[in-house]
């Protein structure tokens, strides 16, 4: 059972300077699952991904990926582990100076000694998996936002990683691309035997494809459960989030003095 | 840009750069007269070297035969010890004279060698015994005035 766990985060806290971002997070992702981390903008979801990727180190607690504690790994160990991870950045983060082909081939060329025709076959396979084999010779500037993200996905899975992290994969996509991307995440997870960690605030789209959801708010996990449990959840925060209500536990107004006082009404006229 | 075209341009750039360096080295400048492997050093002592500087040319019959390698003050004899680095191709008799000369009225100072008649040649680390100091303009004027004054005195 324990072997089944790929990512394990225990009591992790992190802050930028004096501003705490995460305060005591516990999270588990099992192999073959699509796990979503949801929360409003700026609640530390992306920070969580950077912690799992080892780009930043937690101030407290442990992050374990495939049984290895990231805090104890040296640089070489971290880089070895990262070869087994893929990450899809919010806007793809394709290398803009090289073609789609070279982007997908990047890791293969950096980390393997494969001959060029084998690399070619692998690249075409990965691009085929995301439906963009025809775009192989385009430059990143010639792609639409959705296509760029799919190419980035092909690049992320180039070395057949065991874990793929998605940073806001649904942000800024039209409804068709949205569906395509969602299905792709689910299908790749199932066919390639990956584990997917999806950071998103798109509730409707992600609830269709995920196995398990964590809700993060103000640096702590406020709710967790399967997609159905979340939909049925009675927690006010989750309810507001899932149904997209303007006001609730998360107020519409940024904390401010009383409106009347701010406008100079009241005392002056009294 | 195609990879090979790019390589070609960089290759051209490097060749042009090296050509420019060669142009500077061969056409614009000259190699430091002599390097230590094919040269020998002799020392000459002067009471006054005037404005002689290290790397000043050493000429004989107007031809550059070496350079001043080092200038030192000898605290025992209170003289300037000037090391000359001469080209091995040129050998000078032991009784050669070294004089500090000025090119033109205000030009740079150099050392002129005048060959003697000895059959024994100068070797490495030898000393040139006969030297002639730099002409210092102030002394020259002083002497001239002194001479004039003496001329006038008896009358």
């Amino acid at each position, binding site marked *: 059972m324990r072997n089944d766990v790929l990512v394990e985060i225990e009591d992790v806290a992190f802050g930028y300077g004096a501003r705490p971002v995460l305060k005591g997070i516990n999270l588990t992702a099992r192999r073959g699952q699509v796990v979503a981390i949801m929360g409003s903008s700026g609640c530390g979801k992306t920070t969580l991904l950077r912690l799992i*990727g080892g*780009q930043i180190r937690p101030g407290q607690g442990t992050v374990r990926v495939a049984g290895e504690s990231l805090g104890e790994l040296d640089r070489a160990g971290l*880089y*070895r582990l*990262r*070869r087994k*991870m*893929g*990450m899809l*950045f*919010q*806007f793809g*983060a*394709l*290398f*803009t100076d090289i073609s789609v082909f070279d982007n997908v081939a*990047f*890791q293969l060329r*950096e*980390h393997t000694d494969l001959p060029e025709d084998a690399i070619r076959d692998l690249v075409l396979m990965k691009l085929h998996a995301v439906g963009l084999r025809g775009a192989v010779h385009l430059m990143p500037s010639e792609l639409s936002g959705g296509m760029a993200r799919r190419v*980035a996905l092909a*690049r992320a899975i180039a070395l057949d990683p065991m874990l793929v992290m998605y940073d806001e994969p649904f942000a800024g996509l039209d409804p068709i691309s949205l569906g395509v991307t969602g299905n792709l995440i689910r299908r790749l997870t199932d066919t390639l035997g990956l584990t997917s960690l999806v950071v998103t605030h798109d509730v409707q789209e992600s609830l269709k494809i995920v196995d398990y959801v964590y809700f993060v708010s103000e640096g702590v996990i406020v709710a967790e459960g399967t997609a159905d449990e979340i939909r049925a959840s009675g927690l006010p925060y989750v309810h507001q989030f899932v149904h997209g209500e303007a006001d609730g536990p998360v107020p519409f107004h940024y904390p401010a003095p009383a409106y009347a006082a701010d406008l100079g009404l009241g005392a002056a006229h009294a | *840009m195609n*990879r090979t075209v*790019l*390589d070609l*341009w*960089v290759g*051209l*750039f*490097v060749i*042009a*750069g*090296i050509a*420019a*360096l060669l*142009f*500077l*080295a061969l*056409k*614009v*400048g*000259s*190699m*430091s007269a002599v390097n230590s492997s094919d040269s020998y050093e002799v020392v000459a002592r002067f009471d006054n070297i005037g404005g002689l*500087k*290290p*790397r000043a040319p050493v000429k004989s019959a107007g031809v550059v035969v070496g350079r001043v390698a080092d200038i030192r003050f000898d605290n025992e004899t209170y003289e300037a010890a000037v090391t000359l680095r001469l080209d091995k191709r040129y050998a000078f008799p032991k009784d050669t004279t070294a004089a500090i000369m000025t090119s033109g009225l205000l030009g*740079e100072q150099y050392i002129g060698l005048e060959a003697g008649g000895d059959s024994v040649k100068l070797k490495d680390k030898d000393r040139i015994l006969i030297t002639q100091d730099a002409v210092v303009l102030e002394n020259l004027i002083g002497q001239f005035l002194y001479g004039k004054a003496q001329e006038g005195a008896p009358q």
Partner: protein
Amino acid sequence: MLKQAIENLGNRTVQGVWRIGFAARFFLATLLHSGTAFRRFGLTIREMYFSGVLSLIIILVSGLFVGMVLGLQGYETLQTYGSEEALGILVALSLVRELGPVVAALLFASRAGSAITAEIGLMKATEQLSAMEMMAVDPIARVVAPRFWAGVVSMPFLAALFSAMGIFGGYLVGVQLIGVDEGSFWSQMQSAVDFEQDILNGVIKSVVFGVAITTIALFEGYDAPPTAEGVSGATTRTVVTSSLAVLALDFVLTAFMFRGIN
């Protein structure tokens, strides 16, 4: 009010020291991770195209004009002393010792340095550097080091080309246009310009400038805030800082190199 000002000053000083420390660490990391730049020399060659070859036009044209101006001005001045033949010396020495390395470095800073900063800054802003790190490829080794070495190698070539072009410009104006004797132009030049003292020192200067400019440009790009203003500010800082660094370093190096000779 005064307290605020002192506080600001203190803050900026601390920030400045912090940045210098980070820059030094960055420079060391670049040197330490230079293996890739040499093992896969294609990466460095590619960057030499962008920083070296693309700077050629501006370097060659400026060199020609600077040399031509030197020829004109030098002739005017030397003529009053009746020593026009020394024009070759004047043009060659001022180019090889000072103007070649310094002006080429200033042009390089504004042409290639700013491009490097903008490129690295944008790569950072669009998360390309993070992506590379997540793909277990060290951006310092893969992106920074090849650009560093390309700049360091290109700089002396550019300076030499600038000087050569300038001497040619001086020759055009002095000999072809004004009519200074061609033989004495070249021979006086040759007898006065020494390979070690003048040309080699000029090359050493340009290598030092290359190190300074590329380090500043790469650091500013790497350290740029990932926003549009951040990158544009960093690009400006690259040009300003590296130009000042070139001039200051030039003074120090000149004091070192030409102390012994007239």
